[in-house]
C-alpha cells in the first residue's frame, strides 16, 4: 500500500496540490470574526403591572409565566436561567439561554408563550406586554454624511430614499438608522388650563390628530365605458390646516387645535440626539448587530451598500467612517495570522539550526502550511470561522506539527545511513517503506493521544466549550492531519531526493553550542547519578518547586475568563447633574472635546461625540497608536477629575462580540422575615460596606432603593356623588396627570406639505415643579373649579419593595464590586467584608434585645455569602476536571505501552514538571489563570510526556541489551538529547510570539502562550535531568531483585 503510494510521486503531488488549492480557496471563504460564533440569546418580557403590588403580581401572574419560560426546551434551545424583577412600575422577565442558542428562534419561542400569557391578563396590562431581545452587544458601526453645499436636511432627503431600503436587507443588523440631526417634528403643547375650562381631555387632541390622517375612498363610478374613482381628500394637507384641526369637547363643541395648544414645527431639542464628527454636525448612520450576529459582516455589508450608492449622490455629498468594527477585527485577525506565520517561521528556524540543509528543512516544514490548509477545509465544512481562538489553535499546532515529519525523516536518515549499499530505486523504496512502517504506529498513537487530551473538553460547560471549542477543534484538525502528511508526503519527497542526490546527511549548524551543552548536561547528570546527597537535594528541590508552584503560585494567580483585547478607542462618558437643557449639555461636551483635541493632537486621530440627553453625553476618541492607550487614559483621568456636578468616566472600548459574564466581587444572600425587612437590611449593609470603605460600589438585587410614590387616595364619599353629576371628573381623566411630567409622547407621523413629520404631544416642562403642585391640579365640577386636594388625599408614600426571583426562587441579594485597580485584592477584601458583616449583624442582633430603636427585626434575618464568580469558578473547576480526565487517559495509554506502574509514574513525572513551569511562568509574567491558560496546561500534559517516553523507552531497550542502569541513563540521554531539544524547541519558540503578546488581539491568547512555552521549556529541562536518574534507580533496583 505505502510502496504503491511512494512509487507514484506524481499522484501524491497532484493530490497534495489539489488539497492545498482547495484549502487556499476555502480559507478565503471562511468567515472572519473576533471570537467564535458562540451566541447566548437573552430575551426579555416586560409588562406594566398596573396598580398591583409586586407581591400580588408575582403570585397572581408572574409565577405562571416564570415556570412556563423555564420549561422551554427544544432541540436547539435550553434555558439557562429565568430572572424576574417585580417593581411597582414595571415587571420584567429575563430569559437567558445557553451558549450556542439561536436568538431568532429563542425570541419566537418566548413570544408564543408571552402571547398565551397576555390573554390571561386584564386588558390594560395586556397592551403593555412587550417582548424584546436584551442587547448585550456593545459594538456598533457609525458613518457620517456631510456636504459643504447642502444643509443636513437636503442631504438627508437625497440619500435617505436610496440607502434606507437597502439597509433593511442587511441580515446581521438588528437596526440600521440614518439619523437626521436636524429633522423637523411637530410638537403640540396643550394649554392645560384652557383644556380644563373647556372640558377637553388631553386624549381628545391625540384622537383628533389620528383622525386627521384618515382619508376616505368613495369607490368608483361608471360613465359608459370609462370609470372614475371618487375621492374624498384629507381635510388636513398643510401645516396651517393642521393648526386648525378641530378638537371635540365632551359637550360636542369643536375648537381649533391652535386655540387649545401651542403647535410648533421644527427640530425638538428635547427629543434629539446630537452628533458631531471632529466638531462638524453631521448626518449619522448608526447600525447595531443582532445579538449573535456577525458584526464584521454587518459592517462590511453596510459599507458596501454605501460605497455602491455613492456614485448616485451629488459629488459634494461625502461620507466618513467613524466607527468600523470590521476594520478593528480585520486588524486583530491579521495580527494573529501574522503570529501564526511567525510561529511557523520560528519552528522552521529551529529545524534549520538542527538539520542544517535547506532541502531537508523544507521537506519537514512543508508539513506546517499543508496541515493548516487541510485544517481550513475541515473548518469550512464544520461551519467554523477564523477568529482569535481558532487561529490561536493553528499557531499552537504549528510547532507541534513538524514533530511527526522530523521523526519520519530521522528514521529514514538512519536507515539510509545504515544501508549505504542501497542504490537502486527499488531498494530505496523498500528502505523508506520500512523506515515509515517502524514509526507509523507510535506516530499515529502519539498524535492521537495528544489529541485525546482534548476529548474531556466536550464534557465541560457550554461556556468553556463555546470559548475554547474552536481552539481545540483547530488543533485537532491541523495536528490530526500532520501524522498523515508525515507518513505519506514526507517519505515521497524524501525518496525522490534520494534518487537525485544521495548526500542528505544532517549538518547541524549549532554543532558547537550543542556539543557544549551536551557535555555539561552529561557531566551534571553523571554527578547526580553518582552522588546520593546531590540526588536527594535535587529531588527535594523539585518537590519544593512543585509545592510552591501548585500550592502558592497557582492559587495566587488572578482569575479571568478570557483576556481583554487592546483597542485604539477610548470612550468618555460625561454626566452632568447641573445642566437642564440639551444645548447646555452639548456645550459642556463641546468644551471637553475641544480641550482634548487641543491638548493631545499627536495622540488622537479624530473624535466622535454623541449627546444623549440633557445630562449625559458620550465622547469617543480614536487613538493614532494603540500603544498610547494607557498613558493617554491616565492623563485624561488626571485632566478630567470629577466635580460634584460633572463626572467623567474614561475607559477603553472595543467592538467585541463575545458577551462574557461580568459577576460581582461580593455577594450576600439575605433570608428570613419579610421582603421589606430584607431590603432594609440590604440597604443598611450597603451603607456599612461604604462606611467601612470595603466596597464603594454596592447595590441590592432587587434594588435596595425604594422610590417615593405620589399617592392619590380618593375621598370616596365625595367622589361618588361628583362623578355621578359630572362627566369630566373620573379617575381615568386623572391619568392625564402623569403625562404632565413625563417626556414627550409620540402620537403618529403625519404627512404635511408633502413631508413626513413625527408628531409629539408634550406638556409644559415646569407645570408641576413639586409634588405639592399636584394637589392644586384644577378639576372642573359643574360651575366650580376645585383643587385636586379636595377630592383626594395627596401624600408621598414609600413604594412597595421590589421582588426578584432567580429560576423561580425568591432571592434578596447584596452585590458589590471593586474598582478595576483593586481587583487583585478582591479575595482578601471579600474575607474582610464577610467578617465585618457577620460581626455587625451579630452586634445588631444583641442590640435588639437591649432595646435599640431600629425597626428592622435583625434576629429574624440571616445572611449567607455565596461564591460570587460562580461561572468563572465553575468553568475553571470543570477544566480542572477535564485536565484530570485527560491525565487519566494519558496514564491508560502509557500503561498499555509500558505495562509497568513504576515506569508509568516516571514517564508521568513530566506532567508535574510542566505544571511547575506553567505556574512559574504565569506568575513571573503577571498573567492570569484563565480558560486559555488552563487549556494550555491540558495541552502541555499531552506534549510533555513525549520527552520522557523517548528517554524511558530508550533506557529500557539498553537495559534489555545488558547495559548497566547508569550507563543506560547516560547513553539514552546523550542519544535522545537532540530530538528532545528539537521537538520541544520548535513548540516553545512557535508559541513565543503569542507568549509575548505582540499586537492587538494577541493578549487574549497570551496566557496560553506563556503557559505552554514556559511550561514546556521547564518541563523539558527537568525531564532531561530527573527522568534518567529516576528510571536508572528503578532499573538498578529491578536488576538487584532479579539477582536475588
Amino acid at each position: 500500500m505505502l510502496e504503491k503510494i511512494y512509487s507514484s510521486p506524481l499522484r501524491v503531488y497532484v493530490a497534495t496540490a489539489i488539497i492545498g488549492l482547495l484549502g487556499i480557496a476555502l480559507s478565503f471563504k471562511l468567515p472572519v470574526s473576533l471570537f467564535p460564533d458562540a451566541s447566548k440569546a437573552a430575551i426579555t418580557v416586560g409588562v406594566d403591572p398596573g396598580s398591583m403590588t409586586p407581591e400580588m403580581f408575582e403570585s397572581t401572574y408572574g409565577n405562571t409565566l416564570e415556570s412556563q419560560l423555564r420549561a422551554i426546551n427544544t432541540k436547539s434551545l435550553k434555558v439557562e436561567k429565568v430572572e424576574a424583577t417585580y417593581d411597582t412600575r414595571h415587571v420584567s422577565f429575563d430569559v437567558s439561554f445557553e451558549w450556542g442558542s439561536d436568538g431568532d428562534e429563542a425570541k419566537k419561542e418566548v413570544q408564543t408563550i408571552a402571547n398565551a400569557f397576555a390573554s390571561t391578563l386584564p386588558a390594560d396590562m395586556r397592551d403593555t406586554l412587550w417582548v424584546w431581545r436584551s442587547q448585550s452587544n456593545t459594538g456598533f458601526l457609525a458613518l457620517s454624511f456631510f456636504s459643504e453645499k447642502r444643509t443636513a436636511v437636503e442631504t438627508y432627503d437625497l440619500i435617505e430614499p436610496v440607502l434606507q431600503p437597502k439597509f433593511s436587507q442587511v441580515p446581521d443588523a438588528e437596526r440600521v438608522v440614518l439619523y437626521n440631526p436636524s429633522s423637523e417634528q411637530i410638537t403640540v403643547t396643550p394649554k392645560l388650563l384652557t383644556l380644563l375650562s373647556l372640558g377637553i381631555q388631553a386624549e381628545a387632541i391625540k384622537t383628533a390628530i389620528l383622525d386627521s390622517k384618515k382619508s376616505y375612498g368613495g369607490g368608483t363610478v361608471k360613465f359608459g365605458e370609462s370609470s372614475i374613482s371618487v375621492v374624498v381628500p384629507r381635510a388636513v394637507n398643510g401645516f396651517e390646516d393642521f393648526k386648525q384641526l378641530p378638537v371635540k369637547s365632551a359637550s360636542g363643541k369643536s375648537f381649533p387645535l391652535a386655540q387649545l395648544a401651542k403647535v410648533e414645527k421644527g427640530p425638538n431639542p428635547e427629543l434629539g440626539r446630537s452628533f458631531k464628527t471632529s466638531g462638524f454636525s453631521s448626518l449619522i448612520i448608526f447600525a447595531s448587530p443582532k445579538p449573535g450576529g456577525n458584526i464584521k459582516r454587518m459592517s462590511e455589508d453596510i459599507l458596501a451598500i454605501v460605497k455602491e450608492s455613492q456614485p448616485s449622490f451629488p459629488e459634494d455629498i461625502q461620507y466618513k467612517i467613524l466607527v468600523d468594527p470590521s476594520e478593528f477585527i480585520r486588524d486583530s485577525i491579521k495580527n494573529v495570522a501574522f503570529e501564526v506565520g511567525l510561529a511557523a517561521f520560528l519552528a522552521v528556524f529551529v529545524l534549520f539550526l538542527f538539520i542544517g540543509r535547506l532541502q531537508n528543512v523544507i521537506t519537514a516544514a512543508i508539513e506546517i502550511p499543508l496541515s493548516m490548509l487541510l485544517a481550513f477545509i475541515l473548518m469550512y465544512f464544520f461551519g467554523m470561522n477564523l477568529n482569535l481562538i481558532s487561529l490561536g489553535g493553528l499557531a499552537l499546532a504549528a510547532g507541534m506539527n513538524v514533530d511527526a515529519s522530523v521523526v519520519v525523516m530521522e528514521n529514514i536518515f538512519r536507515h539510509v545511513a545504515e544501508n549505504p549499499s542501497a542504490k537502486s530505486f527499488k531498494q530505496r523504496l523498500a528502505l523508506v517503506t520500512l523506515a515509515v512502517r517502524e514509526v507509523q504506529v507510535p506516530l499515529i498513537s502519539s498524535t492521537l493521544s495528544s489529541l485525546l487530551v482534548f476529548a474531556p473538553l466536550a464534557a465541560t460547560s457550554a461556556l468553556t466549550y463555546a470559548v475554547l471549542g474552536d481552539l481545540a477543534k483547530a488543533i485537532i484538525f491541523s495536528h490530526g492531519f500532520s501524522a498523515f502528511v508525515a507518513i505519506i508526503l514526507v517519505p515521497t519527497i524524501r525518496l525522490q531526493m534520494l534518487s537525485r542526490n544521495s548526500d542528505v546527511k544532517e549538518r547541524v549548524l549549532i554543532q558547537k553550542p550543542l556539543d557544549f551543552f551536551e557535555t555539561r548536561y552529561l557531566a551534571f547528570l553523571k554527578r547526580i547519578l553518582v552522588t546520593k546527597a546531590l540526588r536527594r537535594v535535587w529531588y527535594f528541590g523539585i518537590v519544593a518547586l512543585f509545592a510552591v508552584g501548585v500550592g502558592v503560585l497557582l492559587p495566587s494567580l488572578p482569575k479571568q475568563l478570557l483576556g481583554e483585547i487592546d483597542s485604539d478607542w477610548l470612550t468618555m462618558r460625561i454626566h452632568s447633574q447641573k445642566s437642564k437643557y440639551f444645548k447646555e449639555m452639548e456645550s459642556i461636551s463641546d468644551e471637553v472635546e475641544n480641550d482634548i483635541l487641543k491638548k493631545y493632537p499627536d495622540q488622537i486621530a479624530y473624535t466622535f461625540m454623541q449627546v444623549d440627553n440633557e445630562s449625559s453625553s458620550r465622547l469617543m476618541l480614536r487613538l493614532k497608536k494603540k500603544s498610547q492607550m494607557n498613558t493617554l487614559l491616565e492623563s485624561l483621568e488626571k485632566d478630567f477629575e470629577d466635580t460634584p456636578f460633572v463626572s467623567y468616566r474614561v475607559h477603553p472600548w472595543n467592538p467585541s462580540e463575545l458577551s462574557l459574564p461580568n459577576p460581582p466581587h461580593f455577594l450576600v444572600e439575605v433570608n428570613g422575615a419579610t421582603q421589606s425587612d430584607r431590603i432594609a437590611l440590604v440597604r443598611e449593609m450597603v451603607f456599612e460596606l461604604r462606611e467601612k470603605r470595603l466596597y464603594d460600589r454596592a447595590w441590592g438585587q432587587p434594588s435596595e432603593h425604594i422610590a417615593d410614590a405620589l399617592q392619590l387616595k380618593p375621598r370616596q364619599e365625595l367622589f361618588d356623588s361628583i362623578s355621578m353629576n359630572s362627566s369630566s371628573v373620573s379617575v381615568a381623566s386623572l391619568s392625564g396627570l402623569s403625562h404632565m411630567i413625563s417626556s414627550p409622547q409620540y402620537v403618529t407621523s403625519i404627512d404635511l406639505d408633502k413631508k413626513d413629520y413625527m408628531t409629539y404631544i408634550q406638556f409644559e416642562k415646569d407645570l408641576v415643579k413639586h409634588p405639592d403642585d399636584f394637589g392644586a391640579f384644577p378639576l372642573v365640577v359643574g360651575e366650580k373649579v376645585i383643587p385636586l386636594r379636595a377630592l383626594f388625599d395627596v401624600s408621598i408614600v414609600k413604594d412597595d419593595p421590589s421582588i426578584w426571583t432567580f429560576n423561580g426562587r425568591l432571592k434578596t441579594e447584596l452585590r458589590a464590586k471593586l474598582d478595576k485597580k483593586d481587583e487583585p485584592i478582591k479575595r482578601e477584601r471579600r474575607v474582610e467584608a464577610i467578617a465585618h458583616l457577620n460581626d455587625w449583624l451579630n452586634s445588631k442582633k444583641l442590640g435588639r434585645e437591649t432595646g435599640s430603636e431600629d425597626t428592622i427585626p435583625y434576629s429574624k434575618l440571616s445572611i449567607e455569602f455565596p461564591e460570587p464568580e460562580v461561572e468563572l469558578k465553575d468553568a475553571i473547576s470543570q477544566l480542572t476536571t477535564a485536565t484530570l480526565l485527560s491525565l487519566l487517559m494519558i496514564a491508560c495509554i502509557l500503561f498499555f505501552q509500558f505495562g509497568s506502574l513504576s515506569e508509568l509514574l516516571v514517564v508521568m513525572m513530566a506532567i508535574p514538571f510542566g505544571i511547575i513551569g506553567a505556574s512559574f511562568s504565569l506568575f513571573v509574567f503577571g498573567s492570569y489563570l484563565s480558560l486559555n491558560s488552563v487549556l494550555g496546561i491540558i495541552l502541555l500534559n499531552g506534549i510533555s510526556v513525549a520527552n520522557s517516553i523517548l528517554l524511558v523507552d530508550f533506557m529500557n531497550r539498553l537495559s534489555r541489551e545488558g547495559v548497566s542502569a547508569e550507563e543506560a541513563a547516560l547513553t539514552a540521554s546523550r542519544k535522545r538529547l537532540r530530538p528532545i531539544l528539537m521537538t520541544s524547541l520548535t513548540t516553545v519558540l512557535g508559541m513565543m510570539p503569542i507568549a509575548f503578546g505582540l499586537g492587538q488581539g494577541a493578549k487574549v491568547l497570551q496566557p496560553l502562550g506563556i503557559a505552554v512555552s514556559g511550561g514546556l521549556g521547564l518541563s523539558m529541562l527537568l525531564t532531561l535531568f530527573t527522568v534518567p536518574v529516576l528510571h536508572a534507580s528503578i532499573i538498578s533496583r529491578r536488576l538487584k531483585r532479579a539477582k536475588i
Partner: protein
Amino acid sequence: MFLQIDCKGHYVRCLWVRKYRITLVFGSLALFSVSCTKSSTNEDGKTKATVFVDQVKSSTFREEILYPGRVLSEVMASVKAPSAGRVTRVYHHVGDAVQRGTPLVSIKNLDPGFVYSAVMVRAPVSGRIWQLAVTSGTELNAGDKVASLIDPDKLEIRVEVPASDLEKVEEASDIILLRENHENLSLSKAHVSPMVDLQTGTSTCVLKLPENSEAKLLPGQLVSIKILGPPRQAITINGDAIKYRRGIPHVQLFEEGSVVKLHEVKVGLNRGDKVEILEGLVDGQKVVVRSTKYISDGEEVVLYVEPEVIKAKTEKSPAR
C-alpha cells in the same frame, strides 16, 4: 568558544550558580513587584472626595399652598323675559357696553284676543352683554333667558378651599395670583362662605383684585392662586443635602479641617429645592450638598470651588 575554557567541573558549577542566580533575581523581582502593587492598593491611596457645600442660613420661611381659581365678574346679571311674546327688535350686539335702564330688546305679546303694546326689556345694571339668547322674531315664554350682562371692570376670583385647609386660608398673610409672562398680582381676601358645599367638600372663598389693576383677565378664565402663610424665621438648606440613614434624615456637616461629620436633623416643610430644618442645625454651619463619591463619617474631603471660566460659560450656554 566556551569549549576553550578547560575546567569543566568549575564551569558547570558556575553555570549552575548563574542559572540559580537568574532565577533568584527573577523570582525576587517578581515577588517585589507583586508586593509593591499590593501595598499601593491596600493603602488607602484613594483620592479625596470633592464636595460642594451650602451655608446653613436662617431666613424667613412661609408655607405655600396652591389653588386653582376662576375669574368671575362681581356683576353677573341675567335678563329674563317678563312676559310671553315675540321679539320685535334687538337693540344691541354681544359685547356692547350698556348703561342701567338701556333698552335691550322689545317683546310683543301675540295673544290673538288682545293687542298689546310692545314691552321694552331694559338692562338691570350697567355692564357689557356677554350672552344674547334671542334674535328678532324669537318667541319667548315668560321667564325665558334673554341676555346676560357682566361688568368686566369689576372682577373677582373664586377659589374653592377644602374644609381641611380653611384654617390656613384664614391665617394667610398674602394671596398671590400667579401669571405667565406677567408680574404676579397681590390679592386680598373678601369673603369666605361659612358653609361647606356638600357635594365638593369645599367652601367658596372670594378674592378681590387690587384697585386699578391693569390685569387683563377675562371672566371665566382659570388661574392659579398661591396662598402664603405667615412668615416665620426658619433654618433652610438645599434639599439635596438631606441624606437618609435608617430612614432618619441626616446631613453631612463640613467641619474644620475639611472633615465631614454625619449629623441627625429634623426636617420640616419643603418648598422647591429648599428644606426647612426644625432641629439640629444652627446658622453658619456648612452642609455637604453634593460630592464626587460616597463620604464616610469623619472622612477628609476637598472643598469644591467653581472655576470662574466654566461658570461664565455655563451661564451663557442655554441661550445658544
